[in-house]
């Protein structure tokens, strides 16, 4: 006990020595003051153990408001994990920007005296220019501060929160905490929007805006089961349902247009002025703020759906690796499957990309199981059959037996028949599906280009994603074409019924 306490105190001591700077906020002091007392009851558990204490909004606000000082403080706290030099370069970059802006305003003021009688139009232009610059500085500031926040929270969380006094606080009920976190993240968004008073709410990269939701594992069983990652070796973030399902996550600060991915936003920004065409503006913000040398804590994500295995409160919690994983997982598992395949009218998907993938192969799945599942490959079907007792391959259609003399003539039409039969079978139980359902599906398919790009947000090197664009186009058109063929075949529900009864033999 003693040694642990000492260790902690030492840690703290060393970091606090650095952090004794003029701008040290009261909130910081508070946390510091409470720290030692917390150790007293926490030391029984593993040292690494940290409490996901509800952060006080006050602290957060202070951090944002007090700018550099706050950042310095954070740096001090995370001295072992952070490279202050990077931070310094970021700050000097911002400083430069501010100076530039200052010069510009000076210039405008000077010129403004000369051109007093000019039109309002010019004034508006000037105003916009400045606003734009200011916005970029603010964004820079937020991203710099934001990149720190998870780690800040990491340490801050050990600070005494509302529960500090409770002796059993190591075993806080999860649900309660989840709720807290939820409400808090909501607050974060709001405060972000209010504080900066931008034309549109600025939603920065999720990674940065929701860092506060960091959470550590508490249950000791879970800690042991924590797969390869040791508890505490990674931090757990949890997005809210609304955020997961939001169509856009990146918004233009000038015109407010939303984008699925940051890269698209940056491309878009070029249209707003030459300053967005510089290499610095076009570069990935991540690379700027987080150089590769920096040892980052691994981030893992939790699904907000209670009871889900991907939810952090699940006994055998398995974290999700990326935000993309979160999105896809949430949509696939906890959302309605609203996208129906336009070809088979049977398969439904909640993720558009899944529908695309399916439509690429739909109709080519000639390997059918008695359970109705279709496979594009025979070995997959046989693997499925070997796995599930009682499943057998279905035999699609009564093959028409062309006579020897007419077989050559009927070759092509036979092919058509088979195709039709295939479609009929795929329909299976959903024989009531009709063309009406197909239409929206197609529409969705067209709308969804942006969505299918979403991975780009999170990939590190994702410009390869653009290659998908023409392919998707092609596939889309192909799928609609094939749908037409299916229609042209003119099979009726009656046929479908027949084919089904055939296979059930």
């Amino acid at each position, binding site marked *: 006990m003693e040694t642990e306490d000492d260790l902690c105190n030492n840690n703290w001591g060393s970091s606090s020595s650095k952090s004794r700077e003029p701008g040290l906020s009261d909130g910081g002091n508070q946390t510091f003051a409470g720290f030692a007392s917390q150790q007293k009851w926490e030391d029984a558990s593993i040292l690494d153990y940290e409490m996901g204490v509800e952060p006080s909004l006050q602290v957060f606000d202070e951090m944002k408001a007090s700018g550099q000082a706050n950042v310095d403080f954070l740096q001090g706290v995370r001295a072992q994990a952070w490279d202050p030099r990077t931070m310094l370069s970021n700050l000097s970059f911002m400083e430069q920007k501010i100076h530039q802006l200052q010069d510009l305003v000076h210039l405008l003021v000077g010129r403004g005296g000369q051109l007093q009688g000019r039109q309002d139009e010019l004034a508006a232009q000037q105003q916009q220019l400045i606003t734009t610059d200011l916005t970029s500085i603010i964004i820079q500031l937020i991203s710099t501060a934001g990149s720190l926040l998870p780690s800040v929270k990491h340490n801050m969380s050990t600070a005494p929160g509302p529960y500090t006094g409770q002796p059993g606080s190591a075993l806080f009920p999860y649900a309660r905490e989840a709720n807290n976190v939820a409400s808090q993240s909501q607050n974060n968004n709001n405060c972000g929007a209010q504080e900066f008073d931008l034309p549109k709410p600025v939603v920065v990269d999720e990674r940065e805006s929701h860092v506060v939701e960091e959470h550590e594992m508490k249950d000791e069983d879970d800690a042991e089961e924590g797969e390869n990652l040791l508890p505490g070796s990674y931090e757990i973030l949890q997005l809210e349902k609304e955020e997961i399902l939001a169509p856009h996550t990146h918004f233009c600060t000038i015109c407010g247009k939303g984008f699925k991915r940051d890269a698209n936003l940056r491309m878009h920004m070029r249209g707003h002025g030459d300053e967005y065409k510089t290499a610095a503006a076009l570069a990935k913000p991540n690379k700027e703020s987080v150089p590769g040398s920096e040892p980052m804590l691994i981030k893992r994500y939790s699904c907000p759906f209670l009871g889900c295995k991907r939810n952090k409160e699940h006994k055998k919690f398995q974290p999700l690796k990326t935000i993309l994983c979160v999105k896809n997982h949430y949509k696939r598992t906890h959302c309605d499957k609203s996208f129906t395949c336009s070809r088979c009218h049977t398969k439904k998907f909640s993720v558009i990309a899944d529908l695309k993938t399916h439509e690429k192969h739909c109709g080519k799945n000639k390997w059918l199981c008695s359970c109705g599942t279709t496979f594009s490959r*025979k*070995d997959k079907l*046989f693997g499925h*059959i*070997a796995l599930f007792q*009682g*499943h*057998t*391959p279905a*035999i699609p259609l*009564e*093959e028409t*037996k062309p*006579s*020897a*003399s*007419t077989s050559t003539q009927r070759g092509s039409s036979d092919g058509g028949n088979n195709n039709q039969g295939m479609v009929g079978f795929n329909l299976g139980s959903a024989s009531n599906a009709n063309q009406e359902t197909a239409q929206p599906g197609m529409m969705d398919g067209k709308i969804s280009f942006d969505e299918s790009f979403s991975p780009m947000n999170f990939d590190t090197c994702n410009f390869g994603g653009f290659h998908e664009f023409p392919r998707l186009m092609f596939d889309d058109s192909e799928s609609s074409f094939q749908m037409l063929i299916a229609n042209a075949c003119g099979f009726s529900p009656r046929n479908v019924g027949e084919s089904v009864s055939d296979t059930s*033999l």
Partner: protein
Amino acid sequence: MSMSPSILSVLSEDLLVRVYEFLDPPCRKTWRLISKDFLRVDSLSRTTIRILRVEFLPTLLFKYPNLSSLDLSVCPKLDDDVVLRLALDGTVSTLGIKSLNLSRSTAVRARGLETLARMCHALERVDVSHCWGFGDREAAALSSAVGLRELKMDKCLSLSDVGLARIVVGCSNLNKISLKWCMEISDLGIDLLCKMCKGLKSLDVSYLKITNDSIRSIALLLKLEVLDMVSCPLIDDAGLQFLENGSPSLQEVDVTRCERVSLSGLISIVRGHPDIQLLKASHCVSEVSGSFLQYIKALKHLKTIWIDGAHVSDSSLVTLSSSCRSLVEIGLSRCVDVTDIGMMGFARNCLNLKTLNLACCGFVTDVAISAVAQSCRNLETLKLESCHLITEKGLQSLGCYSKLLQELDLTDCYGVNDRGLEYISKCSNLQRLKLGLCTNISDKGIFHIGSKCSKLLELDLYRCAGFGDDGLAALSRGCKSLNRLILSYCCELTDTGVEQIRQLELLSHLELRGLKNITGVGLAAIACGCKKLGYLDLKLCENIDDSGFWALAYFSKNLRQINLCNCSVSDTALCMLMSNLSRVQDVDLVHLSRVTVEGFEFALRACCNRLKKLKLLAPLRFLLSSELLETLHARGCRIRWD
């Protein structure tokens, strides 16, 4: 006559059943004609039946309620409709049938098979071999027979992995399955089979295009005892290595003509299974090396080994025999290095030998044969085809010592003469004798065979031009149990001799190809006498006139297969034949100079519901009506256009 009822009345029914059980099939036929009681015993005791005519199927099934085995393989006109009608017939009980032979029943398709599977709940064994129409749909229908244990699907050409999967999922109790020549079956099917049917004991994957992956799956079968993979071109030694540590119960392996298998593959099998009893590796190993013999030595239970086509030195043959003394059967055909010295050493060691194949071993002489005959007194089968150095001396020892000899193949041994035949005739148990191309034998030699070999079942005299009518007469008098007789190209034969064949009442297979001297008279006599005739080859018998064919049409009701190529049959005779021969299934009708297109059309229309195989001249394809061809196809008949 007055006494007999009293004696028989003493015998209770169960005693009669005991007596009945000792009778062989021909006697049982007599038995049931004796009295109503005997008939009753027969109808209650009979468990197996082979139906020749589908018309009698319901009656016979009704008469024999305790049947467990039903053979429909030679039953023409059997199709789905027959089966469905049978199912609707309430009087017929098929619940006890465990074994069903549907070989070559090409007209029975999915509907019929499903009905049969439903009717026969207790079904355990099914043979659907050579049903070329048997495909996935049929397999699915058959899979409803969940109790199936043995399934033979040889040459079910349309069967694919999907069909096999249906069967293995439905009938997971299978312990014996044959997939020979099911060319569509791939690794996936075999893999699933091995996963689902863990109790498999016997598996035949001969001629399949399967790879080593299949062997890997097969090696997981713990109960597998018999594995046949003849001529699997894609399997190599690496595949056989899986067997070294797998399939621990393996007792019999056949890798004949697997091109890529070499000695090292065999060694891995042998190393893993010291209890192996049968090893057939013909035409895949080039040489029997010392290392292989080292491993063979460990096989104390080896009974059968086939290493045909390999270079086997005399010393290795002796080594082999000295370690595997329980050897019962050895195949050494085309082992050209084998000489008398090797064979003598071999014969000294393997006293229990029953089957010896020395075909095309050109250096083997009388000395070797004598040694084998003297040492291996249990010899039952001896194949000496194309051993040109064999003379009467070797045959003399056979006649003296090999009293149990049942099968002797002397095809193309031109050292065999009348004296030799005289010696052979002392092997009184001889059942199968092949003397094809032995041109040095005459009536005198044949006379010895005919007078002494009364148990002869098969006799092949192909192109033995040296004997004539007298010899044939002697054969017909003596060898009453002959059921297979080949007299093709024995040019000396005339009507006088051929007429004598009528005495062979059990004859079912007769080849008279190229006998220019016989006419309608001879054929009429044969048709009249040999009621059991099922196969008749009259190709190139140009002098047989319509009278012979009329007689054939009238008498030979059991004829199943007939070859009339180059015969001078007329339109009317052909129509008569085809319409009257109600069991005919396989017909060769090439080069019939006197038959017109209309004649073919009518004749084929008359028999289109029972034909399974047909050979015609190619131009007829466009001359015959498409309606007829469609019907033939629909009924499961395959036409070969020559």
